[in-house]
């Protein structure tokens, strides 16, 4: 699944049109504890989080994730969006809850992170 397909699937607003939407998404994940995500994140991941500060982008970029998904219409702070554009990370904002986002991703066949990763 590409980031563009992901956008359509979760009715998202693309907050970083500069980032490549043809990037392949490898798996889905949701967690708001950044240090947990650092330990369990994976490349190509679509990560759902309510956190919106700069460190979210740092984590996503270091883990080479495909996209950060912000649920429930939460606004990401402008400096974080700027950083995301610099790093080429897609930030997607959607009115859906984290639960609904994950349910749709799973239904579309996107796996969770492999347990070995």
């Amino acid at each position, binding site marked *: 699944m590409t980031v563009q397909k992901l956008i359509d699937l979760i009715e998202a607003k693309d907050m970083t049109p500069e980032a490549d939407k043809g990037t392949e998404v490898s798996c889905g994940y949701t967690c708001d504890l950044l*240090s947990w995500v650092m*330990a369990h994140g994976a490349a190509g991941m679509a990560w759902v989080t309510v956190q919106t500060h700069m460190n979210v982008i*740092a984590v996503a970029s270091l883990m080479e994730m495909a996209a950060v998904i912000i649920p429930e219409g939460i606004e990401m702070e402008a*400096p974080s969006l700027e950083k995301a554009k610099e790093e080429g990370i897609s930030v997607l904002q959607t009115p859906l809850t984290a639960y609904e986002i994950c349910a749709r991703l799973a239904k579309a066949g996107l796996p969770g992170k492999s347990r070995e990763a």
Partner: protein
Amino acid sequence: MANLLEKSFPVEAGAYTTAGEASTTIKRTLKQLGINAEVLRHVSVACYEVELNLVIHSLGGTLTLLVDPEKVTLISKDVGPGIPDIDKAMTEGFSTASAEARTLGFGAGMGLPNMKRNATEFDIQSEVGVGTTITMSFALT
């Protein structure tokens, strides 16, 4: 062995907004050197964790990157406050992070164990009132 590269980055205590900048620069530098993706990922994770520890827990410090033909080495050296019980600090789930750090999603008590897991060799030396030095190396071959 002669170092191909040596670079130091000052890390300020409590500078949450710029946390991760040193790690991002280090990752970019290593990528340019053509370090393999798997090693790069391990270095990036450990580097970000140690940089965050400097921001969250230390009174300020320096992150140094060394590259030689056999390994990448990261050295984090701070000026205090020092860790009273290293065994406890190394325990997964144990954290002394502030309420501010926790609000940002840090303080899961995963930092030090995560560094150890990602590094080929991990060493931590600490003295209360003096400071903490963490040395991690990542084999390239």
